[in-house]
């Protein structure tokens, strides 16, 4: 058994206070992501909204990242393999207090460290650079292998998009992680059913999706990716002898009613002021802050 598997993991705390904190971080994540995309006049809002609850649960309750920096060699790692979710990643860091709000709000701007897709030399917390689908997943596997080889009992989490799982590299990696018994690795699929041009099912169908992962040697669970209790339970139930995948059924654009399950909000979009104001109000942002974000 690997050292990482032997690490005693505390049950995630599922008190009402923790759940409330996750919900607050998720709301702030969505607000800052939308504001950043509006200011950038481009960016992918749909997939940022769909993964916000998962990101908030990970950072609030699951990841052990001392000091909120990438300095500790024994920290847990999170790799956003679906790199176009960058607006949500920068936003959750800001919501956690790891980076100033300026980071998500300077999304995609020249000279900003918040590039359109995460770059580790600009943002060490991104752990690697992503934006070419499949590669973050492989890099996360490499981190899990490297940590285990050095007897560092840290865990590695990586989030994939559903469309991303059409990349052959994902299945090379899935076979590899299972073959090497990487129980210190947990993948999360943000299964929002939509990709750039259309529904997954019309582009290149993924089903039977959980069965594919299981056939590749993974523990796979399917959950509602917006149910905080279900998310925490899934993380608590990862396998001790093999890699685990949490297939999170989500709604693309979740939280912004006019975006939900509408493919056009996948893409890199230019948000209009009235659309942005409506979205931010719906997400619970304060009017004064909305005007401040939209003015600069």
């Amino acid at each position, binding site marked *: 058994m690997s050292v990482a598997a032997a690490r005693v993991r505390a049950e995630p705390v599922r008190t009402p206070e923790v759940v409330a904190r996750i919900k607050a971080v998720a709301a702030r994540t969505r607000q800052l992501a939308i504001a950043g995309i509006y200011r950038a006049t481009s960016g992918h809002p749909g997939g940022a909204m769909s993964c916000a609850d998962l990101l908030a649960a990970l950072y609030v309750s699951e990841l052990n990242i001392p000091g909120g920096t990438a300095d500790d060699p024994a920290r847990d790692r999170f790799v956003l393999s679906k790199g176009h979710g960058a607006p949500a990643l920068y936003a959750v860091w800001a919501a956690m207090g790891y980076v100033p709000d300026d980071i998500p709000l300077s999304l995609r701007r020249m000279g900003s460290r918040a590039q359109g897709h995460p770059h580790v030399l600009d943002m060490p917390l991104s*752990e690697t650079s992503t934006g*070419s689908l499949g590669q973050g997943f492989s*890099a996360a596997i490499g981190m899990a292998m*490297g940590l285990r080889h050095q007897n560092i009992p840290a865990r590695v989490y990586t989030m994939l998009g559903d469309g991303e799982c059409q990349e052959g*590299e994902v299945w090379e*990696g899935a076979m*590899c992680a299972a073959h090497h018994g990487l129980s210190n690795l947990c993948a999360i699929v943000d299964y929002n059913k939509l990709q750039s041009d259309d529904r997954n099912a019309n582009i290149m169908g993924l089903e039977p999706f959980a069965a594919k992962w299981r056939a590749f040697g993974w523990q796979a669970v399917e959950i509602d990716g917006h149910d905080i209790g279900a998310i925490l339970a899934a993380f608590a139930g990862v396998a001790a002898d093999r890699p685990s995948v949490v297939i999170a059924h989500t709604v693309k654009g979740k939280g912004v009613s006019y975006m939900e399950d509408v493919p056009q909000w996948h893409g890199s979009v230019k948000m209009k002021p009235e659309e942005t104001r409506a979205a931010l109000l719906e997400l619970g942002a304060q009017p004064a802050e909305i005007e401040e974000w939209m003015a600069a």
Partner: protein
Amino acid sequence: MSTPALIGTSGDSLREAFGKALTAACETRRKVVALDADIAGGTGLHHFRKAYPDRFFQFGIAEQNMMAVAGGMAATGLVPVVTTFAVFCLRAVEQARLSVAYTRRNVKIVASHPGIDVGPDGGSAQALEDLAAFRAIPGMTVISPADPHEMALATEAVLDFDGPVYMRTGRSPAKRLYGEGHVFEIGKGHVLRDGSDVTLIACGVEVARAAEAAAQLAAQGIQARVVNMATIKPIDTGLVARCAEETGAIVTCEDHNIHGGLGGAVAEAMAASRPCPIEFIGVRDVFGESGEPDELAERFGLTAPHIAAAAKRAIARKRRG
């Protein structure tokens, strides 16, 4: 400068020299791990696997994942050496670009079986584009040593260098050019033979052929300088400029497409310093085919007589001004 004769006709292949040198070097370099895609027997990595089974990682026939995994392993402080055939490194160029170079990971990509030197496996297996592809990646150091001894020195240098490297080995038994006392330094070319009429700048298996061409030219009264340009990137711009200045004509020699590899690197450096006539020895923008390496070298114009003829063309162009 002295003119070393070929020390022997045949030594280890560069891949075997690499595998042995890596194994010897890693007794003390404990952070080095090696990654294989089911061809350790062919890349020389079998030596490492036998010596350090706990530091040897198998990825199966899946090079794209292996390359990006290497980037992730490096992120945890290890020094991954990724080995496969050069043609399969091409398969993982984008992973090398993003997960190794863009992230500035300390990963060493070691490619065996480059060029038509692969021989009988034929055109599909003969990578003639790898130097160009990896040279175009920002921050990637590109190296192609010339003989088994230099390969051993280069292997140590590459392990101790902080940053991503692409290094070619070779399939066939390699001519020995160097003995003890040779110094290999990343980024520095080595003048193997001095001369004033033309400079033959070569890398990898073509260095021995360039030396042979220089001997043929000397018999005809032409003094050719031979430079082993083992580092293609960053190219030794000072040495290129000096050769252009002092000999006024250059021939580049590589087992690679004439586009984008050593010839391109030398031409760029020369054009930016002291322009002079240049001729390119290499595979002329076609794919390879099956055959023995020496037969193919003749067919594709990589042998000493072709190099000597190119040298005369370059000299003639110099004289025409």
